[in-house]
């Protein structure tokens, strides 16, 4: 079976990387190949890295409240570059109302604080095998 490659990215100005690092490590432990973007990446940098690294999914971690424009921009860039087969998911401090809007826009899933990393692993295994 082919090993899935995941880009965990921190867009925007937010430096809180505890969640991103815990998720990256849990995914690695579960057998994924994980690339961590580092802090304060622009949507352009993230999408370029995703294409260059040929990843299957991108996970965005945002705790600053800037999730709507940042997800929107990443989705737009993926479409423009014909890379919208890459699964986009995310996590952070994101209100319920915004989650439904993000899903409508094309974000596959949002994981809130307190999420079990095994749920994230399961979600990716299911979505990437289908």
């Amino acid at each position, binding site marked *: 079976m082919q090993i899935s490659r995941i880009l965990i990215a921190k867009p*925007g*100005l*937010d*430096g*809180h*990387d*505890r969640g991103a*690092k*815990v998720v990256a*490590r*849990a995914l690695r432990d579960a057998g994924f190949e994980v690339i*961590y973007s*580092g*802090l*304060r990446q*622009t949507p352009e940098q993230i999408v370029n890295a995703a294409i260059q690294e040929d990843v299957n999914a991108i996970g965005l971690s945002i*705790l*600053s*409240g*800037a999730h*709507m*424009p*940042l997800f929107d921009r990443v989705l737009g860039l993926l479409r423009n570059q014909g890379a919208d087969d890459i699964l986009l998911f995310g996590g952070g*401090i994101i*209100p*319920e*109302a915004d989650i439904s809007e993000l899903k409508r826009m094309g974000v596959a899933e949002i994981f*809130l*604080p*307190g999420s*079990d*990393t*095994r749920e994230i692993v399961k979600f990716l295994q299911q979505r990437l095998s289908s």
Partner: protein
Amino acid sequence: MKTKQPGQSPLRTDRKSEFKTVSGKVIQPLYSQETLGQVDYAQELGDPGQFPFTRGIYPSMYRGRLWTMRQFSGFGTPEETNQRFKYLLTHGQTGLSVAFDLPTLMGLDSDDGLSTGEVGKCGVAVDSLEDMLILFDGIRLDEVSVSMTINAPAPVLLAMYIAVAEKQGVPADQLRGTLQADILKEYIAQKEWIYPPEPSMRLVVDTIEYCSANLPLYNSISISGYHIREAGSTAVQELAFTLRDGIEYADWCLQRGMQVDEFAPRLSFFFNCHNDFFEEVAKFRAARRLWARTMKERFGARNEKSLMCRFHTQTAGCSLTAQQPYNNIIRTTIQALAAVVGGTNSLHTNSLDEALALPTEQAARIALRTQQIIAHESGVTNTPDPLGGSYFVETLTEETEQAAEEYFRIIDAMGGMVNAIERGFPQTEIQEASYQYQRAVESKEQIVVGVNEFVSSDDQGPEILQIGRQAEEAQIRRLREVRSQRDSQAVESNLDTLKRAAETTANLMPLLLDCVRSYATIGEICGTLKEVFGTYTEPEF
């Protein structure tokens, strides 16, 4: 004090084979005279108000004066935050604490491309002196103490604050408050830096030196463990890295040629308070004792105020859950109680909705009321250090202090905190602890109510605060007005002078004051310093 390992548990029906604190420290079945050993009261504890201040820095503690109730707040435009400040003051809050948005924290103007979507989101947007004047409109700066959490651009915001005071006719030596200028914990944990460590340290020392000479009532730095804990550290790591950061600042101030008793009385600290009640109380007591001993023995401080670890506490944001958010009120209450029993000098209690968004007015009011109930109804304020002498708490205090000292030795051997940071030492220690905690939660070794146990799917969430894009638009409009109305030649010349001074070893504070008085923006000022200092990218650890 010696710690003797107790024998078998007297209870054969223990629920678990091992009992651990939130930080993963194993707790013995029983603490007694035997486990604690002999305690030299004068040496280890001292009465409250006496060296080594284990029992508190003031003789009567809250009998004399309650802690300052200081709720951290800020969102949207300066007008909106000014309204929230006035609301909190009307409801009995006794100090202000400003949260700035991410562009401000990163030294960017609201109309910078990188600021898109971030303006006013997790704090208030401040671009120039004009915004700062609006933020404190109707609030006399000689009547209230103000804490500013601002880190990398701290000297710029302090300059703006002093400039607001000038316009209000308040002399600088009347200003009370605290500047969270602690950049080391940014590299360690929160990661909102601008410049590399060396020039950043120079800016911190400039600020401390300027404040020592001009703002005698102002805490020139708040050395912060809060963010270290939020990033996932243990209680011991929080204590050790924070106090070791304090040592680093003291070392750099001495290298600048200052005397320890000139600056040490205005160093202040900021800790987290998590759920494990006794572990937290012990941490606060150990903090006071360890800092007092460090200042006396390592630095030869003579002034009693130099020995006192004065600290603000905030309850643990990372302990709050998005699930069943009303439970967060209870968590915050336990944490606030530990902070008070531990002798905090000021306190912020988190709001129940903070795992979802910034707090609504109502949620912020419940958080403030939590402190008022502890202060006026619980009775814990009646006597200082009510847990002093407890076998358990004294043993934990001792063990916490020793474990922190062990970290001091490791970091000293690396050549100090700046070197340790460059090697990624505190960062990787914290990452490991944070991952272990996550595993403990996922294996249910650590129960989190409503998250991995007692889960219910039908809980109604509270209403939450929505911050739209209007703040961004309003902020950009005002910024452009400011730019068009100011004397742009004066701005250019002040920025040029700043740049040339940054290339020398001069204290930059007076020049920053000139820049902000002429309405230079935060983006222009920080951008000018970037040209000289460069920027920082974290290596991969």
